[in-house]
């Protein structure tokens, strides 16, 4: 039973990590390797808002999300605009920017136990003999809410329609008046904001240090690759496969094997079934 519950929590955390990454990639074809760095940077921003400006956590949350979105937006117009469409250069730029942010944070002393974010709910509840704390319930709630909200946003707003148009065919979208740079930068901003949301609910649960950023990137990539990038359902399914895989590995083999699961999953899926478990043909053409 505890495997079931904690497996679910782990899975939803993975889904939170991945949702921003897959959104950006799905819309503008931009593999944002800065994702992990943005995640941890949001934690860093929130901590500073709270400890230097002494804002309450509830005020710091929207500010951090906005700040992260703005950073993503800015990154598009300053760094990515000139290499747009050259997949390899995009990859180098985002990857290098991500590593640069993380190494800068490490260098600035962003590790150890000094930094942490507060939990919103202290008290927990008990489900059939397993105690689960409030923060983990919040994680589950946020995950479910985000997936639903995103679905509504993408399918029932004008920007969402533009997003879907870009995702299907950039040139055709351009020909009906969708500004591709504008939508691309918005998608990156939204992806970054989602990374910040994930950071604000997940970080209070554990360590907050720069090296976590690399792990988040790996998890996001793993979910995106295993699930295939075009469907939300695939992403959720992949998070659950990986999440339960991780929890089971941690329980039955040993906790040090937890991080091996996503790495092995990426390599295996790409080698055996490059379209992802539920991906369709369009993606296959891109990958192979």
């Amino acid at each position, binding site marked *: 039973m505890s495997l079931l519950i904690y497996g679910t929590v782990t899975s939803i955390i993975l889904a939170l990590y991945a949702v921003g990454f897959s959104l950006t990639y799905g819309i503008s074809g931009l593999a944002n390797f800065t994702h992990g760095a943005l995640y941890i940077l949001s934690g860093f921003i929130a901590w500073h808002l709270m400890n230097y400006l002494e804002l309450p956590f509830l005020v710091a949350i929207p500010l951090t999300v906005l700040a992260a979105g703005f950073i993503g937006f800015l990154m598009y117009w300053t760094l990515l605009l*000139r290499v747009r469409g050259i997949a*390899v250069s995009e990859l*180098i730029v985002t990857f*290098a920017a991500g*590593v*640069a942010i993380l190494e800068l944070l490490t260098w600035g002393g962003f590790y150890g136990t000094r930094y942490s974010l507060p939990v919103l709910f202290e008290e927990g509840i008990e489900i059939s003999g397993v105690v689960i704390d409030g923060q983990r319930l919040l994680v589950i709630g946020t995950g479910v809410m985000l997936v639903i909200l995103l679905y509504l946003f993408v399918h029932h707003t004008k920007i969402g329609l533009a997003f879907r148009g870009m995702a299907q065919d950039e040139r055709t979208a351009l020909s009906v008046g969708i500004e591709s740079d504008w939508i691309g930068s918005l998608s990156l901003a939204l992806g970054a904001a989602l990374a910040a949301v994930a950071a604000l609910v997940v970080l209070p649960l554990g360590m907050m240090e720069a090296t976590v950023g690399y792990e988040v990137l790996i998890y996001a990539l793993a979910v995106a690759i295993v699930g295939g990038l075009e469907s939300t359902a695939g992403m959720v399914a992949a998070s659950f496969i990986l999440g339960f895989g991780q929890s089971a590995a941690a329980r039955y083999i040993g906790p040090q094997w937890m991080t*091996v699961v996503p*790495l092995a999953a990426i390599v295996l899926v*790409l080698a055996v079934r490059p379209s992802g478990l539920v991906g369709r043909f369009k993606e296959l053409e891109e990958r192979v």
Partner: protein
Amino acid sequence: MTSQVQLRKRRLDRGIKARTDSVFVIAAPNDLIYVLAPRVVPILFLMLLPLLLSGYEGKILVHACVIGLLAMSWDLLASCGLFSLGQSLFFGVGAYLAGTMNKYGGAPIWLTLPLATIGGGVLSAALLAPVVRLRGVYFAMVTLMLPLLFRKLIEAWGILGGTHGISSLSVFPSDWVAEYLAIIAFLGVLFGLRKLIESDYGLVLKAIRDDDRAVMSAGINIYSRKVQALFLAGAIASFAGAFMTHHFGFVGFSVFAWDYAILPVAATTLGGPGAFAGAALGSMILLPLSEFLRAMGGLRIAIYCCILIACVITLPEGLFSFLERKYHQFETVVEVK
């Protein structure tokens, strides 16, 4: 009305350069010097350099040569469309092969170096053979993940020395041997690969990068060509790894670290991809620079990353291509009439 004198730059190609990169028209001794200088000067410079350098500077030179080897192997993969973010994989495979053979098999250096080179090439090609079908970003993701996976496996299983690594391995008899071996390997790989990429074989590799479907429709098996390129690049990088193992007398999982993944990419991007000399030049610039930055610790990697981004955005052709173009042109300032 006074009109201002307008000036413009006029560029003329040197007549000596005939149609291809390898055929020259030599009509005077000056032409001969012009053709030979870019080849002879670096060789002489590198060959004489160890005589001028003392112990620590020599180590930097060796390190620069090793990163140069990795960068050229990266460049070889990139010129057939395989974009790798994990040169540390090949490097680590070679390093661990040499380490295990030396420690547990008792093989001497002159045996472990060639064996690790060939074995590393075979192993790298075998590991990545299932994924050569993948394109751009996806291939890069696999190569990024594999070194991390290996590192985790070594950590989790505790095999091959686990977190402590394998120490007290044989080292080179003297610094001279190490320095000259590194330099000769560096120059050999540089000129060898430049020859290779201009041959018909290299032409096919470049064509795979530009349009793999077209190469397939010409009846060439692109996957086998890609595996061959992987073997070659893997062997070069594994030699670098095996060499470093014996240089330090130690191998640990730091061989899978970021340095060996980022530096080759940064060096090649700085120098200019596609010509190998760019990769070599880039590593010769970056490594001494990184020694200046060593005191900064982790910030060093952040600075490489910034250099990398700046190069990709502002100088996409790279330093070497820029210099090469300038070298082959006369540039004069003339008045606009």
